[in-house]
């Protein structure tokens, strides 16, 4: 059965801290891994990763995929209160896979001033 596991499930840090969120997966016919930031509205797309070892960066956020370990990490440096959200990881399968998208349960990040 396809699955995506995120850890930790929740995290509380102080402003300025650096955090690392983890995502591991078991999916038939892997196509890509996606990270989202979920606040009250629709999830915001952060990164799509398809190749192992290539870091993607956007401001204070960065992510990298390790296909050998079947995992990905999302790093946030110098955290701010506005980073508080649920961070979702999802894995997209090829059309020959079992399911189009498999979501993890998310990591709830709380950044306190």
């Amino acid at each position: 059965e396809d699955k995506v596991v995120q850890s930790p499930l929740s995290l509380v840090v102080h402003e300025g801290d650096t955090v690392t969120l983890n995502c591991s997966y078991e999916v038939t016919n892997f196509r890509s891994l996606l990270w989202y930031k979920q606040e009250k509205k629709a999830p915001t797309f952060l990164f799509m990763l398809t190749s192992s070892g290539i870091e993607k960066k956007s401001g204070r956020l960065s992510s990298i995929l390790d296909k050998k370990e079947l995992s990905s990490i999302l790093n946030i440096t110098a955290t701010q209160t506005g980073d508080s959200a649920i961070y979702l990881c999802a894995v997209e399968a090829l059309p020959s896979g079992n399911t189009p998208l498999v979501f993890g349960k998310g990591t709830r990040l709380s950044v306190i001033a």
Partner: protein
Amino acid sequence: EAGVVQSPRYKIIEKKQPVAFWCNPISGHNTLYWYRQNLGQGPELLIRYENEEAVDDSQLPKDRFSAERLKGVDSTLKIQPAELGDSAVYLCASSSGTAAGGEQFFGPGTRLTVL
């Protein structure tokens, strides 16, 4: 715990054909969302239901898309007729409405390919 269920998981149709997607939310969740996600992008909200009432359908292309949520539980999303640009993953999500932080639970999606 049963999650959000969607069917079918994959659908391939020719343009101008109709297609329908089905979603069963998590039991007890009164809010249901339909999203469309194109490759490499985030989900775009199509419609949001609170129980059986559509409270936000501003992004739903009403000339060809329709949705219903009878009895405030299951929902169907229909496209008639489908166009090539409708090829995407259609996601359904649900939330309890009282969940802090607007936490939504997503189904596996239906990947639509229009030829």
